[in-house]
């Protein structure tokens, strides 16, 4: 009997099958980009140096109790008011900093019983062990937002001329820095540092009491 040649398989639909698989993987791939609040922890310091005395008016205390209630400067406060309160405290500029300069860029009310200078203003935060993490992050977020608001204001005051189209100058500058991470832009970095220095982030956290 004559050997019959095997019929050739039609490979025309191969592309379709491959496309199907490709689209499946395209859809299921999520190139995750995690985002979050970046904070630095204080290093452990064993030296027994007497901590400098901080005057009460330069300290903005935020307490969160186990029922997730906020106590700000000895008064109960809602979370939505925290940002504004922190901004007013940081921006007060009622006195002089260590070097004896007054805060000429502050737009606050210059009250005598609030912070002297953004250099001196410290936000102190303390929470209970039973506080939920969600509340803790919300409070952190509001406090960081207060700093970001003020830095944004200063950045647009100083550098708006370089970024005439940008709505948020500070955010644009940070984005630019992110993009140029392989080719360092000294001028840009210096500007960002200048803005950061005007409102240095002094956010201290006390350890919750053990009980």
């Amino acid at each position: 009997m004559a050997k019959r040649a095997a019929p050739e398989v039609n490979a025309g639909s191969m592309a379709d099958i491959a496309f199907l698989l490709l689209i499946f993987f395209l859809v299921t791939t999520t190139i995750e980009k995690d985002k979050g609040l970046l904070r630095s922890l204080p290093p452990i310091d064993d030296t027994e140096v007497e901590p400098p005395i901080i005057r009460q008016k330069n300290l903005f205390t935020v307490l969160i109790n186990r029922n997730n209630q906020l106590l700000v400067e000895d008064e109960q406060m809602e979370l939505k008011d925290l940002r504004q309160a922190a901004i007013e405290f940081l921006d007060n500029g009622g006195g002089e900093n260590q070097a004896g300069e007054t805060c000429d860029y502050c737009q606050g009310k210059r009250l005598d019983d609030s912070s002297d200078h953004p250099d001196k203003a410290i936000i102190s935060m303390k929470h209970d062990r039973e506080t939920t993490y969600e509340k803790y992050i919300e409070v952190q977020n509001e406090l960081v937002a207060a700093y970001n608001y003020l830095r944004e204001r200063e950045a647009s005051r100083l550098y708006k001329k370089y970024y005439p189209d940008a709505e948020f100058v500070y955010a644009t500058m940070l984005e630019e820095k992110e993009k140029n991470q392989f080719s360092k832009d000294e001028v840009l970095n210096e500007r960002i540092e200048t803005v950061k220095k005007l409102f240095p982030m002094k956010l201290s956290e006390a350890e919750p009491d053990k009980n």
Partner: protein
Amino acid sequence: MSKFRKKDKGELPAISTASLPDIVFMLLFFFMVATVMRDSSLMIENILPSADQVEKLKKDRTVFIFAGKPSSQYKQFGTEPRIQFNDAFIAVEDVKPSVLQAISELNEELQSKVVIGLKVDKKTNAGLVSDIKQELRKANALKVMYIANVKTE
């Protein structure tokens, strides 16, 4: 007639699609390789809190620590929030050695820039987080990122 007329009669030859599957397969393999389903399977509930003042995280220099209540398949570990590192539950005092170990596995030039990514369930007690932070201070890994969902308003 002119010489050029002759060429008219031939129709355009059909473009061979024989190599199309190869191209598509190449793309397919790329995506198959690039897809990371998940690094470590989570043994805890992990609903992140939301925030809007967020910064991007650089993945290459990050060590992740998870915390939260054990999820329903891992009920035998109790209902108290636990710390998960890679694929196992660890105790608070094991955080420091685990983190140091993970840092030493990183690329040398990134070791000094390491960021600890804290993926903590929003219902966890903040006390557990501050315990973790104490351990991180002991391990001298001071850069922490509280990973959060971006709030959309």
